[in-house]
């Protein structure tokens, strides 16, 4: 049988996926809009489930217990880190890496805000990578201009008590 000719790499076809045209109207959008509006008053609004008491922040229309959360409750602006990582090359047990892009890494943390039962992914500022740990207490840091965006609550700093 003749030797088959083949290319080394899979052929790629250029294309784009214009996600801004993707406009949703589902239920959680309306609920999260209410929470986003409250950001402008520096308030964190979560939604509590009448069936099991879990507080979803940002809110969610259906609970995992299949009840419908309906009680708006204020969630605290302090929370606890549940998990973390760093972008870029950094920190194998505290050792600075030569490899990878230069500059300070972004510290990405999962935060459980007090008074809620959910995790929110944020960046951690005003801290060095080696200072981060699971269980670390943090405080929300609002942006200078609060626009009522979901990422208004995407930045935390260490809680100084």
């Amino acid at each position, binding site marked *: 049988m003749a030797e088959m000719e083949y290319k080394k790499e899979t052929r790629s076809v250029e294309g784009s996926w214009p996600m801004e045209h*993707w406009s*949703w109207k589902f239920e959680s959008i309306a609920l*999260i809009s209410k929470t986003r509006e409250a950001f402008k008053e520096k308030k964190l609004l979560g939604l509590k489930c009448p069936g099991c008491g879990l507080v979803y922040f940002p809110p969610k229309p259906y609970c995992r217990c299949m009840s419908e959360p309906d009680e708006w409750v204020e969630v605290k602006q302090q929370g606890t880190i549940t*998990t973390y990582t760093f*972008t870029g090359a950094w920190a194998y*047990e505290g050792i600075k890496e030569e490899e990878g892009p230069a500059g300070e890494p972004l510290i990405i943390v999962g935060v459980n805000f007090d008074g809620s039962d959910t995790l929110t992914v944020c960046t951690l500022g005003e801290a060095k990578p080696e200072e981060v740990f*699971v269980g670390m207490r943090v405080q929300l840091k609002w942006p200078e201009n609060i626009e009522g*965006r979901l990422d208004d609550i995407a930045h935390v700093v260490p809680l100084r008590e």
Partner: protein
Amino acid sequence: MAHIDVAVTGVGYSKHVSKRRDVNIAELVWEAVSNCYEDAGLKPKDIDAVVTGNMPAFEGVNMPELWGAGHWGAYHKPLIRITTGGTTGGSVAHAAYYAVASGLYDTVLAIAFEKQSDGNSTMGLNTVALADAAAQFQQGVDPGFLASFGGGAVGIAVYQAASYMKRSGCTTHHLDKVSALCRNNAALNPWSHLKQPGLTPEDVAKTVLMQYPIRFGHVCPATDGACAMILTTHEKALKLQNKPAYILSCASCSDEAALMGISGSGTTNMDPCAQEHCKLAAKWAYELAGIKDPRREIDVAEPYAPFAHQMLMFYERLLLCEEGEAPAILDSGSMNLDGELPVCPSGGVISTNAIGASAMERITEVALQIMGKAGERQVKKEVHKGVAHGWGGAVNLNVVAVLSDTPRRS
């Protein structure tokens, strides 16, 4: 409960490498299926039904079961496809098991595969999250910010690893050791992808850091490969061979997606390393199998671990020790091929990951260990019972199967 004992009576693998340019999807799967027929001593006419599975998003080729009848011996047979992410192969095996255990069919062919080089797996993973990401952008999340969280499966795994290391005391040296153990085992496995005989933890520690705490050497390769398995009744299996392996039980359990809830809502699955649903699936599988003390009764384990920390984490979540004990058990040598409870003797998913196939390959590898047919990778101790596991989705799905050399009812 009426229950028919289900035996594994044949196993077949294709060649597993990064890029199988010499075959198309149907031909790749044919290799595994024909090896399986040969291993079982059966022909397509002996098969009552076929279950197949992969993650079509990874190939970018939908409905791959189109070729089932023509290439896989599914001509004029019942055929169903199952897709559940990383657990696909486990779900396929479970479905085939239920088909026989229920008495609906006597002999069922289970097929699981992935030909990742035909598509783009990162794009495939993105399609899982694109609609959700679009909803987040709509509500004011900067796309660059979202991307910085870390993409694809590594993105999920780094959070899980950091959290596991905190909870268990596992160090990066343990991660290096896991990789070295698995890749050395893989070198003894003729069908494995990454064979690195003599690889040391020090070698792994020198590989490039991908995202804290995971290095290149802690991550699975992207593999093209297929696996096939024939399940049949206890009675039929005994006519075919002296020492079949029995699937005693299957259990699966789901949880909320971790890290991000849907469309910007919070998720209650706060710690991606908790894997409470894996513990539940394991508990149910052991109960169904009549296993009271898995630590004493399980002889070999094949946890689904594409990332190094997961071999230790799932060893704990499969209830094979107390939480936080796995790193010390690794240090003791117990997980080695000649250890008390060998783990990933096949080399594991960290050495070979044809995604759709991987969770079924955990089951076929435990079956081969029980049948004593694992060749050079056969563990030194006698194997009576083993546990096989699969993990998938945004850490939200776990499947567990318990296998034995003895059927349940005897």
